[in-house]
């Protein structure tokens, strides 16, 4: 196993919504440059895991560490500053703002920086966004909105990118395309945690995977091994 400090580490996380115990003893590690996917059915706690990582909900017990530093009690904005970004579920773009402004908001914490390079990087990944830069984000099609959401997250130059169900609501051809882009971004050195229901496609590009079931991590391992796993096949791959 790799000996360097992990980029992100969850240890013994227990998260509650009021009385309801959602995440139960979660442990998770993401190292620099890795592409990790988090699989699980509806309501298994995938989004809750991301919210815990970002600090939108606080775990009752357990620690979240970034680069070895305990950030469990640190507010969201500070965690973002330390190099995280998220493509939220359902994209959550700023509808009445232009594509360009949406991208700019992604770099909100880098006010002084010259954003030229980031804009170029995003526009190179998504040439379509360059042409649509003056269009209101709310008027884009679903696939285009997904690109803006991804571009917006990349604008902060994250070391770790969290993605919540990027394939949701996309046509099959766009799903494939968005996973290609995920791979491409990862190849450029950004570590990723991709939350998905679509186990097949996501495991085919991931290094490692975790499987959540009603708030518990029931399986983890290398992506190739998970693809071969009988239980997972039955549960998710339908084969």
């Amino acid at each position, binding site marked *: 196993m790799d000996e360097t400090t992990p980029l992100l580490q969850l240890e013994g996380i227990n998260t509650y919504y009021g009385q309801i115990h959602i995440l139960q003893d979660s442990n998770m590690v993401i190292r620099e440059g890795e592409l990790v996917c988090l699989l699980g059915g509806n309501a298994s706690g995938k989004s809750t895991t991301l919210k815990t990582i*970002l600090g*939108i909900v606080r775990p009752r017990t357990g620690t979240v560490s970034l680069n070895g530093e305990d950030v469990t009690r640190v507010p*969201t*904005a500070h965690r*973002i*500053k330390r190099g995280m970004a*998220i493509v*939220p579920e359902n*994209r*959550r*773009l*700023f*509808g*009445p*703002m232009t594509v*360009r*402004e949406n991208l*700019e*908001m*992604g770099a*909100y*914490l880098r*006010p002084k920086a010259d954003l*030229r*390079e980031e*804009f*170029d990087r995003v*526009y*190179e990944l998504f*040439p*379509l966004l*360059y*042409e*649509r*830069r*003056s*269009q*209101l*984000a*709310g*008027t884009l099609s679903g696939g285009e*909105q997904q690109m803006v959401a991804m571009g*917006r997250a990349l604008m*902060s130059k994250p070391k770790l990118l969290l993605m919540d169900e990027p394939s949701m609501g996309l046509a099959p051809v766009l799903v494939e395309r968005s996973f290609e882009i995920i791979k491409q971004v990862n190849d450029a050195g950004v570590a990723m945690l991709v939350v998905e229901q679509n186990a097949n496609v996501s495991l085919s590009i991931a290094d490692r995977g975790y499987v959540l079931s009603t708030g518990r991590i029931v399986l983890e391992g290398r992506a190739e091994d998970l693809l071969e796993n009988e239980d997972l096949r039955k549960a998710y791959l339908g084969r």
Partner: protein
Amino acid sequence: MSGFDHDDRHQQGSPSEPQPGARKASEAEAPTSPAVGRDEWVARHGERRARRGGVLGTLEERLAVVPWWVWLTLFVAAACTVPLFSESGYVRRVAFDTVVFMLLALGLNVVVGWGGLLDLGYVAFFGIGAYAYALLASDKYDIHVPTIALIPLVALIGGIAGWLVGLPSRRLTGDYLAIVTLFFFQVFLTATNNGDDVFGRNLTNGPNGILDVDVFSFFGWSLPRVTSTGQFSVRYLYVALAIFGLVYVALRLLNDSRTGRAWRSLREDALAAEVMGMPVNTLKLMAFAFGASVAALTGSVAAALNGSVFPQNFEFPLLITVYTMVILGGAGSQVGVVLGAIIVSVLLEVLREPGDARGLFYLVILLALVGVFRPSLRLAIVLGGTAVLGFVAHLVAGRVDDAWTAGVAEDSGRIAGWVSDWVIVPTQLAGWVPAVSYVTLIALALGLTLVEGWRRVALLIPTLYLAAFVWENVLLDAPESTRYVVLGGLLVAMMIARPQGLLGEKRVEIV
């Protein structure tokens, strides 16, 4: 370093001029094969845009590229010419009050339109500004801070007060903030009303207000409030306009800044804004404080002109008025709220004068009918029907009892003459009539929204006649409350016709 052009000069609103490269690509390949990686919709945006032809179309396009500051300059310059057209001190004073309202609307727009916060204590900050000016520039404590330093100081005091009021209600979501600010408003009124006896000391003279407030004075050149002939001094109008221009520009730049965009994204989706790393609470506090600061600044202008400050100057109707201006004009749009302020301010003045109010009432109804029906058979039927109904009703009522139609309409004038042959105006109104007719009118108006087609036309005729009856007999009798009834009606009509206000942005829903 790359082919992407970061110069945004031709970005806002004119995607009709895409990159030269893009145009070439689309021209060469467009009709047969869509270019890969090029967005045909955008590349050919210009061709697809429906254009108005002829001179009007060209004019429209030319006007659309005039920058905002040119319009602003023209507007302020035009407003400065008001005194040329009217010698009347009253008109000039109304113009000044309108500018004060414009400033108040601009400030409230920061809180409501940009911050998305419901601030029901806004007028208290106006009051704080006025009191701060009065206490720091009057004989009350014998302090006379020079105007040029005092105006920014008052704005600062307002901003700090806003920050402090916002602070305890950290999370600042809708209902909580509304209650906290309303409470603060009440505290302000109670404090100023009882400020003559704070543990035995007289701090603000209580309900008697602070008198003999200093006039504005710049570098030893002081601005008297009235001219030698006792008229309103028009210089205050100029000063107010200058301040308006500065505030407008400052806020406009603020809205174009990083903070302005953060406000907008916050209003759209607070959670998404938070995960972009925006300090949500601080941003809300800032909107609140900026609004309060503008209100306080405006307070100093009003205090200097009036020469006195009383707690009664800052009561609830003022809050409703300023909110009406912002909502009517379109929260979020600076031009919109200024327009709203002008419309409402002038309207409230016109409604003071029964003759003018009557003319306006019938004109608005006529325009609304034309707007809804367009010139058509239906319009003719509605207008003709209402006229006939009126004359018949008037005739019958007159036959039954002379007293039923012998009442005199308020004020005289040509319209009053026509109206007295048409609307039943009894000499003496039975006590139950105003309430019943008013409620019936509202019921009929609601009924109108339930029926369709010719039934609606048929119901509209008695509704219009009853409206005229209520107007002549009930509302013109009580001009003070009528003003607010009319404001309410205006808001309801606006809500139905254009929920986003005159110039407000239509919300873009993400689906």
